[in-house]
């Protein structure tokens, strides 16, 4: 029997050609696997067929109308972007964009983080820790809570040492903080290169480096909503 996730990756055409050919041979030689592949193909085709009916329906006027009404008040994308850039004063995070794309614990010194501006991170004993606002968000904010301002929490998980870690995002900057010694210690901090800042929650994708950092340290899977809530109630221990 082919390993489950590999079997489905093959079924979905996600394996490189040589590996796919190997799995295909194994599946063909095993009647149970062949039947399972057929069942899943039929089920997925049935599911696509059922929802294809929605796609084939005419779009209701209440939806199509919103876009057509918008045509009356055309806003030039470049103009709108320009206005937005001038409207918002660059935050400390954006100013930090001049730094290298990846800032790792210890590289940032206290001097860099101060200068009279309240900073979401701070240095303590040569380590990078979350400052009050980020600390509050990491301590009391669930990923599901809408965050109209301030840091937004992404994934929560246990790393391979059993420590609870959470990813966060503040405008274009994202990072990974882990609960150590009663503090949230910043393990990784990422910022896209200058000029490529993208908006809060609207970015086209997560910083791939952050995902790599999560994949490298995670033990098992990220917490689901219930596990996250329960971990919060237990003080992230």
């Amino acid at each position: 029997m082919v390993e489950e996730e590999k079997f489905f990756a093959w079924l979905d055409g996600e394996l490189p050609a040589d590996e796919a050919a190997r799995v295909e041979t194994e599946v063909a030689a095993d009647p149970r696997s062949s039947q399972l592949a057929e069942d899943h193909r039929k089920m997925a085709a049935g599911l696509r067929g059922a929802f294809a009916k929605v796609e084939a329906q005419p779009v209701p006027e209440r939806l199509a109308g919103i876009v057509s009404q918008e045509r009356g008040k055309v806003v030039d994308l470049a103009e709108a972007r320009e206005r937005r850039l001038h409207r918002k004063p660059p935050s400390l995070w954006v100013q930090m964009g001049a730094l290298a794309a990846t800032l790792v614990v210890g590289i940032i010194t206290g001097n860099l983080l101060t200068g009279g501006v309240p900073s979401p991170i701070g240095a303590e004993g040569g380590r990078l820790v979350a400052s009050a606002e980020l600390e509050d968000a990491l301590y009391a904010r669930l990923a599901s809570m809408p965050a109209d301002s301030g840091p937004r929490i992404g994934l929560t998980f246990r790393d391979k040492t059993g420590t609870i870690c959470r990813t966060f995002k503040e405008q274009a900057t994202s990072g990974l903080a882990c609960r150590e010694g009663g503090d949230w210690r910043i393990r990784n901090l990422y910022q896209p290169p200058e000029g490529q800042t993208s908006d809060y929650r609207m970015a086209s994708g997560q910083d791939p480096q952050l995902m790599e950092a999560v994949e490298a340290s995670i033990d098992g899977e990220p917490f689901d909503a219930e596990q996250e809530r329960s971990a919060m109630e237990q003080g992230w221990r």
Partner: protein
Amino acid sequence: MTPSETFESELTQLLPRLRRFAFALSRNGADADDLAQATIERALRSRDQWQPGSRLDSWLYRIMRNLWIDTVRSRGRREKHEAPEDAAQDVGEDPREAMDASMELQRAMSAMERLPDEQREVVALILIEGFGYREVSEMLELPIGTVSSRLVRGRTALLEMLGGNADG
């Protein structure tokens, strides 16, 4: 065409697909169209945040998914998800349903709704919308291994509920 007109034209072309995704996430058609409406409104308001050259569909799906998560969770819905075995019995297997397109959709939506939210979004994006694992991993900001394992659990539960063989 100005960039703005291009944006609206592409958005209009994507509406049928966006609605399909909304139906896969929602409990019923009314909720689905509410979600689609909120997504279109948010997209139009935030259009300057979309980066031309990047995929508009992924950007829109991401907005929809975030709005859906906010709505579902703020509704305080904490339903205990039924075990696939029980759910399979609930959904039932009525041969007449196959004859009726809307019943077939209802049955598919009902099965999707029984999946935990985390599995439902992955199943919808990969099995129904046809995105690749990597694209979904980036869209949902999840490690690819998590996407893959949620997909396995979700589709396994769906197979129990919907069956793979036409005869059930």
